[in-house]
């Protein structure tokens, strides 16, 4: 029952936060300067007019109207199916990122020489701008053939999700694997436990509190990677593509782009929600203050 109580509490808090942000948005629209505020020529206050900040009600009502006039497809269906498409790509990216991240962490925990050699490159890999990488990876689509497997275009977007996801997971897991107290490690040694036994019986359990936040970061990283890849390479079907297509119409229909942006936000929440769900399960035997 404690668990149900915590979930209920979180749902209430979530709703309250949304209500608070909505109120803040509308309040700013009332008191904020219509044309924004400038201080020494630098814009510090955003514009409060309907073009820059549509009313929340306008944005929500946009969901129930058709995507384009004459089409019978309501925009919420389009956004939902776009989010679903991107969610599946993100999950593939996250799954690959988790696999790669944990494998690298184990390798680095096992062999000091690998850790010293590899870690700087991992850090460096994250400084490569995603938009520079995206066209390259996407060009594999339909060209790369491994045996009978032809690389599909959507997988390239997932790979970019993987690229952002594996790093926090690798670093977090590595930190976790090396966090076992030395007394416990020495105890395992005194039992003549093999490295593998130590890994599964001691190091991994000790790593869980480090891995959960890392997985959360990885999950949102996977979403960001996929959405950016969709924007930069125009992959059709996902939420990123919708954002850029609707952004073009922001001049005449400013609420439209927000529908897709909210879709992307919901996508990110769903992903970290999935991880939080696994967190409840993984951390079930631990004192609650470490759960985030």
């Amino acid at each position, binding site marked *: 029952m404690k668990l149900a109580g915590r979930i209920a509490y979180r749902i209430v808090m979530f709703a309250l936060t949304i209500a608070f942000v909505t109120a803040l948005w509308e309040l700013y629209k009332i008191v904020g300067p219509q044309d924004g505020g400038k201080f020494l020529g630098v814009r510090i206050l955003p514009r409060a007019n309907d*073009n820059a900040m549509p009313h929340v009600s306008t944005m929500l009502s946009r969901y129930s109207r058709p995507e*384009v006039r004459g089409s019978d497809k309501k925009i919420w269906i389009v956004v939902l199916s776009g989010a679903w498409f991107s969610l599946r790509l993100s*999950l593939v990216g996250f799954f690959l990122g988790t696999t790669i991240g944990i494998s690298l962490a184990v390798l680095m925990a096992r062999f000091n020489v690998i850790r010293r050699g590899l870690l700087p490159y991992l850090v460096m890999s994250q400084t490569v701008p995603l938009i520079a990488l995206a066209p390259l990876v996407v060009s594999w689509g339909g060209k790369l053939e491994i045996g009978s497997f032809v690389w*599909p275009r959507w997988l390239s977007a997932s790979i970019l999700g993987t690229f952002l996801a594996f790093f926090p997971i690798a670093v977090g897991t590595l930190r976790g694997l090396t966090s076992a107290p030395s007394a416990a490690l020495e105890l395992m040694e005194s039992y003549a436990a093999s490295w593998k036994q130590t890994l599964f019986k001691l190091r991994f359990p000790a790593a869980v509190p480090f891995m959960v936040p890392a997985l959360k970061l990885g999950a949102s990283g996977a979403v960001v990677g996929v959405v950016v890849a969709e924007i930069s390479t125009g*992959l059709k*079907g996902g939420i990123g593509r919708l954002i850029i297509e*609707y952004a073009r119409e922001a001049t005449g229909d400013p609420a439209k782009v927000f529908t897709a942006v909210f879709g992307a936000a919901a996508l990110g929440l769903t992903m970290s929600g999935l991880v939080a769900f696994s967190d409840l399960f993984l951390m079930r035997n631990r004192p609650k203050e470490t759960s985030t």
Partner: protein
Amino acid sequence: MKKQSLKMALVGVAVMSLIAGACGGSDTAATEETTATAETTAPAAECVTPTPVKLQLQWFTQAQFAGYYAAQDQGFYAEQCLDVTILEGAVDISPQTVLANGEADFAISWVSKALASREGGANIVNIAQVFQRSGTLQVSFKDKNITTPADFKGKNIGNWGYGNEFEIFAALTAAGLDPAKDVKLVQQQFDMAGLLAGDIDAAEAMTYNEYAQVLEAVNPKTKALYTAGDFNVVSYEAEGVGMLQDAIWADGKRLSDAAYVDTATKFVAASLQGWAFCRDNTSACRDIVVSKGSKLGASHQLWQMNEVNKLIWPAAGGAGMIDAAAWDRTVALSQSAKNLEGGTVLTKAPDAGAYTNDIVTAALALLNGKGVDTTGSAYMPETVALTEGGN
């Protein structure tokens, strides 16, 4: 404990099904590339296996590329025994690079941008100049009094970058202004919000897209749509600094191969036939583009179709012919117009191999044999009424 293992199993099943679902994503993604195989018109009798052709566009599906979609939809490509796949562009996709890397057989690109790529080593050749005129404008509110490029002085001038700004530099240079000192160049978004909000005094706009966007927006003062009367428009074509835009580019390495030249001729012919179809059937082409997945509204798309037709027709020398004078002007401007750093788009004139009229001449002969009107001398643009948001 038992409860927990049940929960664990449920989580496991949920995760697995999601991952399985994700792996099934390929069929949805595959709809991206549409092919002409199953189209209406029956191919000629001698066509056994259609030649596969990939065309790389500069941007997402929209009426700017209607001719190619119409040729696909109306079976003009199939008639020429071609199986054409149209690849959409995106923010980070450069058609010139895609073509030079051999990932596409033909690409659509603006001449100045493509020549810059050619100077950078990409062996690409202009084989048909589809847009005979430039569609770039600089749009400003009436009260800014910007009617010529000389009025840009001291103003915030919006531009998109990525090689779409060359005409602005050419106009500034022609007006005797220094882009680095006399104007403030502002990076512009995909929408025209910057102009409406006043951040940009004069915004770059294509006649067929962004200019329509401002006319689809509601004027907060009057609660009605903005009208053309609210704006001043500087047309680079009218100012004499228009550069050639959408052209079909081919892979220069393969032009010595007779089979590729034959494919190119057929491809250009069928594409021009598609454009001729769109000239005479604007609404049908609008519908084709919408059915190919364009997210832009119907009235916006019809406006775009009409404006694009104006850039192509009438084509006195035949559609797709590369006019030496316009070409030379584009090259001269690319060499003389100074950018922010004082450099120019091209450092030297491109060699004679940068364009050829051989293919388009053969293609036009093919079309004239079929009775297609390739000059459009009687073409009259329509009047399109835009609605709010272009929907």
